[in-house]
């Protein structure tokens, strides 16, 4: 099984298949469907310093091969996570990575600090790319300067593996990736959702309470794949790729484009067993292609 092992910063994942923040709850939602311990890692729900009620209903609209969401980081806050949720999930034999969000740099820092002591949380993912909150969120991820600023501040206090999650809603994602790399990020993950919108022609109203929301699912895969490929060639830290992965082929494509690991998001809603199928598909691919290790093909797109 070692041939699936990959390394992100100080973090060793037993395989490159993880699940994306906000689409996999705290893992337990999927425990009926799969053995969570088979996953390379679980990126849990977006967590903020203070509890958040999230946005008003409706928060979801189906689109062609995808969906828009406007959840808006509903969560009970980092303290609740530490005291109530962490104890119930810390026994998983997989890495749990907390996705951290905030409205100010101080929020990110304070939230990150509270997670340091949690033994079974080896890494955090800074979400500087949430399109569904009014302040902060995506605003940090759409400029190299502010992305660098929040990375720098968190890096100062957070000694474990620091992953920064990039927004695709930018002209040049490599530039942002380089900026967070320069400030000490151990890895970048991409992409978060694309800012999108849906309208009901009959009522002439937006379908989301927030008018715009985040687009995810297979529809975004071609753009996400391109961005992973660009970022892979721009930075020296590992890239975690995601955006529309729905089967092992997609995962291999991201890995060929340069992803050391992948996250599966929206497709878990359609097939809650998809993550395990992807792991099995990758194993099978290695067999068929006589590869000793997945690392042999990371970034090995033949151009």
């Amino acid at each position, binding site marked *: 099984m070692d041939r699936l092992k990959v390394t992100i910063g100080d973090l060793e994942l037993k395989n490159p298949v993880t699940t994306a923040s*906000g*689409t*996999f*709850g705290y893992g337990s*939602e*999927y425990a*009926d*469907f799969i053995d969570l311990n088979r996953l390379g890692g679980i990126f849990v729900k977006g967590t903020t310093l203070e509890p958040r*009620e*999230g946005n*008003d*209903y*409706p*928060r*979801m*609209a*189906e*689109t*062609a*091969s*995808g*969906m828009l*969401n406007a*959840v808006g980081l*509903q969560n009970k806050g980092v303290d609740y996570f530490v005291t109530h949720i962490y104890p119930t999930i810390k026994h998983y034999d997989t890495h749990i990575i907390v996705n951290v969000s905030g409205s100010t740099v101080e929020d990110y820092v304070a939230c990150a600090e509270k997670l340091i002591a949690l033994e079974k949380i080896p890494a955090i993912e800074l979400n500087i790319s949430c399109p569904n909150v009014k302040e902060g969120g995506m605003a940090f991820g759409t400029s190299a300067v502010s992305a660098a600023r929040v990375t720098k501040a968190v890096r100062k206090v957070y000694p474990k593996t620091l992953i920064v999650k990039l927004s695709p809603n930018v002209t040049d994602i490599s530039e942002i990736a380089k900026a967070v790399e320069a400030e000490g990020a151990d890895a970048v993950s991409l992409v978060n959702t694309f800012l999108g919108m849906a309208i009901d022609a009959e009522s002439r109203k937006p379908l989301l309470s927030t008018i715009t929301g985040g687009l995810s*699912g*297979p529809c975004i895969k071609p753009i996400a794949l391109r961005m992973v490929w660009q970022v892979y060639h721009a930075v020296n830290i590992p890239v975690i790729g995601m955006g529309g992965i729905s089967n092992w082929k997609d995962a291999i494509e991201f890995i060929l484009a340069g992803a050391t690991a992948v996250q599966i998001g*929206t497709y*878990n*809603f*359609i*097939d*809650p*067993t998809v993550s395990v199928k992807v792991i099995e598909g990758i194993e099978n691919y290695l067999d068929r292609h006589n590869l000793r290790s997945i690392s042999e093909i990371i970034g090995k797109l033949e151009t």
Partner: protein
Amino acid sequence: MYLCRNHRCFLCILEHVFITTHIFAFEMKKMLDFIIRSNERLNSRNHLLKVSPSTGEKLPPMFPGQFVQIWVDDSPATFLRRPVSINFIDEKKNEMWLLVQIIGEGTKKICARKEGSLLNMIFPLGKSFSIPPDTKTKTLLIGGGVGTAPLLFLGKVLKEKEFSPEFLLGGHSGKDLLQLDNFEKYGTVYCTTEDGTKGEKGLVTHHSVLQKKKYDFIYTCGPQPMMMAVARYAHENGIHCEVSLENLMACGFGACLCCTEKTTKGNVCTCTEGPVFNIKELTWID
């Protein structure tokens, strides 16, 4: 005092019925292919599908108000699964019934499926209607349109548990009232239609039985305005009332946080905390 809403809760089974907050012992959720045993067109917009696990395995315990998530894998226009209530469980035949109304692409494709074809479903999802502890409790099940779907199953269970449920079913016209024969097996059925072609003319909340009789429990499912009117009636008359919501869902099992309803406890997921809610938990009535 009544049984907790998860009929499988071992604490309730041990009759610790006075414990109101406790760990529920849920049946595992599954993803499974079902085979369509029959697909009957009830009227121009509604189909009744009877399905059973293609693996031949026995259906797990399921409870009225719970639903399934159906994968519509033969349409380019449907990405997400479609939630549909469990209409009925035929234990003997190991069949689940689904009453589906054609609304858009997804339900159209589901209704077009032929006998013998497969339907991939995630089930059982959500919390069920609660069963009163005392079988003398007077229960009324009010349904509108395809909202009657979960009430047939509920009527059956109530009857089996020796309640005497009554039904009040509304529709635009007589032909919109579905499965009346089935409902009649479990209790008296009152009807209203907007055009007066069957039962009393008007809306369910105007039916005379609501003036004449006093009920202890009302369960309702149907269009939102109807449920709100029912909720108001129940509230005004101090009747315990449970409604089944149809919020838009992406996952159906608590992972996406898209199906939220504002409650007294804040935003909660309809798919895991509902779809059945006591109206007291909702913010419908101030």
